[in-house]
């Protein structure tokens, strides 16, 4: 890639983010959250957003190194300090129905070696502070999550390359999986969205009461709420805008019933949780709750996460992705949920999305829970898909229908 080619692709990527991901409307403001290393893309997105008629593009930059410096140098009891403006920032933008772009390019090893107790305390304080805002404004306006090939992340994905080569390689992966290097990215995304919507419609018609997962180390039954709503690709936000909240995206997903998950599931990829890697782990569920966890690496961090609140040990998302998805096919472990979750079937510990239950956005917390939705400060995806995974859909009369075989869709559309 020459510098000029890269600059061009970056510009196209920015246009896809603004026009397809966010579907930014004239007169909206845009809040971008990212790390300092995201600056080259942020500048392109800013230009594209202003050209689309944005009133203001504001960036809330994080310096990851400072995050680590805080853990290393601040007095431990101060790690729960959260300044008010983190809250007022979101309030200002959400109240106006402005758009939000989050960039997830964090260093997967940022906090390695830091005590999980401190990390969990810090995260919990932040999540608790944000919870009221998050509940009040969930999906109220168009948002999107994307990534850039930051140096630390790229070096983790391609440890044998120099930082520069690793970044270039990772950029190529991002451009390919986000369909940026196709002649007409807009047309490519329209076609892809239509494709995912077919699976979404099929699953919504079937009304399965549960899914049964069978794979090496996995024998798990995930109950589905009666009012389950399968989602995927496009989302309609409460401000009426239709966008694509994740770039890339290959998943269709809904919420499990928080009380009806039983059996054992083995993760097929490491999990990057708040800068700590959790590897080779499995969880056993009884009546929805994780009652046993085993991990070769990072077990304590996983345990702390599950103990963060009452429902962090229950599931809040179940997502289906064929093993042959464009991201799965690349055979790369990304150490980043945005990519890894689109390479394989996955489930998430913690919070359920309101839009995955019919009428969920209008329900009280109690009604949402009564319908099987889970409420937690945590929402952590982990991958369970592989070429040896079979999934059956179970109907209310007990009959079974193959949904996936050997990691691929088993349904004919």
């Amino acid at each position, binding site marked *: 890639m020459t510098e000029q080619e890269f600059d061009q692709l970056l510009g196209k990527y920015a246009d896809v983010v603004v026009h397809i991901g966010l579907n930014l409307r004239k007169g909206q*403001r845009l809040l971008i959250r990212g790390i*300092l290393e995201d*600056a080259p893309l*942020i*500048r392109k997105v*800013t*230009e594209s957003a*202003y*050209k689309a*008629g*944005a*009133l*203001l*593009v*504001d*960036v809330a*930059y*994080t*310096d990851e*190194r*400072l995050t680590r*410096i*805080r853990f290393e*140098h*601040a*007095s431990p009891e*101060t790690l729960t*300090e959260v*300044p*008010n*403006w983190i809250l*007022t*920032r979101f*309030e*200002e933008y959400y109240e106006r129905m402005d758009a939000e772009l989050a960039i997830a390019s964090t260093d997967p090893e940022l906090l390695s070696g830091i005590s999980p107790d401190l990390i969990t305390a810090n995260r919990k304080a932040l999540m608790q502070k944000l919870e009221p805002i998050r509940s009040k404004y969930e999906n109220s306006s168009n948002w999107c999550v994307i990534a850039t090939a930051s140096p630390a992340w790229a070096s983790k994905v391609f440890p044998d390359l120099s930082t520069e080569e690793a970044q270039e390689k990772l950029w190529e992966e991002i451009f390919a999986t986000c369909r940026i290097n196709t002649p007409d990215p807009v047309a490519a995304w329209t076609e892809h969205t239509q494709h995912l919507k077919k699976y979404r419609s099929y699953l919504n018609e079937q009304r399965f009461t549960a899914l049964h997962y069978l794979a090496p180390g996995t024998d798990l039954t995930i109950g589905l709420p009666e009012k389950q709503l399968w989602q995927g690709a496009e989302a309609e936000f409460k401000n009426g805008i239709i966008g694509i909240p994740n770039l890339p995206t290959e998943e269709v997903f809904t919420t499990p019933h928080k009380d009806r998950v039983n059996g054992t599931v083995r993760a097929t990829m490491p999990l990057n949780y708040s800068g700590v890697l959790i590897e080779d782990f499995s969880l056993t569920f009884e009546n929805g709750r994780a009652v046993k966890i085993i991990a070769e690496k990072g077990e304590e961090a996983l345990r702390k996460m599950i103990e963060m609140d009452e429902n962090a040990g229950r599931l809040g998302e179940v997502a289906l992705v064929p093993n042959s998805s464009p991201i799965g096919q690349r055979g790369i472990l990304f150490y980043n949920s945005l990519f890894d979750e689109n390479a394989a079937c996955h489930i998430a510990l913690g919070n359920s999305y309101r839009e995955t239950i019919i009428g969920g956005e209008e329900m009280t917390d109690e009604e949402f829970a009564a319908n099987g939705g889970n409420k937690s400060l945590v929402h952590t995806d982990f991958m369970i898909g592989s070429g040896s995974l079979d999934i059956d859909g179970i109907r209310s009369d007990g009959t079974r229908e193959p949904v996936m075989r050997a990691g691929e869709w088993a349904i004919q559309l």
Partner: protein
Amino acid sequence: MPTKEEHQELLHKYAEAIVRVGLNLRAGQRLVIYNAINRGIPPAGRPLVHEVTKAAYAAGARYVEAIWGDEEMNRIRLQHAPVDSLDEYPKFHISGLMDMIENGDALLSISANDPDIYNGLDSERVVALQKANLENYKPISQNVSRNAINWCVVAAASPAWAAKMFPDLDQAQAEEKLWQAIFETTRAVHPDPVAAWNEHIKNLRKRADYLHAKKYSALHYKAPGTDFTLGLPRGHKWMSAQALAENGVVFTANMPTEEVFTLPDRHRAEGTVTATFPLSYGGSLIEEFSLTFENGRIVKVQANKNEAILQKLVDTDEGSTRLGEVALVPASSPISKRGHLFYNTLFDENASCHLAIGRAYRFSLTGGEELTEEEFIAAGGNVSLNHVDFMIGSPQMDIDGILDDGRREPVMRQGEWAIAV
């Protein structure tokens, strides 16, 4: 060039001096690091921010927040944003900072700005954006100018700024040279920077105390292109390096600092004053300019370059037609002796006697913090969105102090102090 380790060690000592002398950060305080011009710190400030953060936590800081910004985003905005959107402003920045100020937290502004960031852009748009920023920022500048909390302004070298200063060097050399200039002028190169600062602060305070005891009613400036009388209001306080903030912390607001300063009487300035350095304002360089005053008001501006921008600055509001600061710095100051322009007020104002167009600091008038705006104005204090320093000193400048009875005493001769302390 120093080795990487030597550079890191100097950065560390600089950060220590900032936290212990500049901010004098107290255990339990929170600290916000930002950029007073552009809200966010330019990314070039990162290594310094890391060292300051470590030093702050070591001093017992409860929380350190860094607000980052990318100047390039402003350029993109000025080029591509809808014309009528330039007054859009994220209000939470202000409420967030106000929240910290009301809590008694400390503020550190890191300057690393590109002096030419707005070169070639439509100056109408530049001025519109800057005015909107200043207006929104007013609650913060008001609190800072009355020393509500301990605050400090320091600098970090950045590629664009270094290239502007040392155009003949390659980027790495230019940056290192600028860092050296910063380390030397902020005494970070001293074996014990904190002790060196304490000694320097004492020396400056002696000059301020001398002038304070004199209670001059006016100063008269004479130099090529300058014949200028500037009234000083009753109750004016000569200040130097250190000040006492309302939160009880004694701090040093600028690093470096070589000046002794007070506020002029906004109603009493007569004659013409010629600038001796270019003025970098809003990303443009105003060069070879002079201002003529009558009854404290600027009645004529003249500049060989960017006169229109100077005129816009003066036209910002009523207070921008008047002066808010008078500062004395010998022509032999360590910064002046370097013999080059920094294109950054923090440094250039410490190379030369200077004046400021616009807002006066409340703390430079006895009891000024307690006055209403009307009372402050009546007492001779100036109120404005702007506070823009410009340099007038040179080795040809003589300054007399004029006492109440009209007698004159030499204050400076040929750019140097003429007073014995």
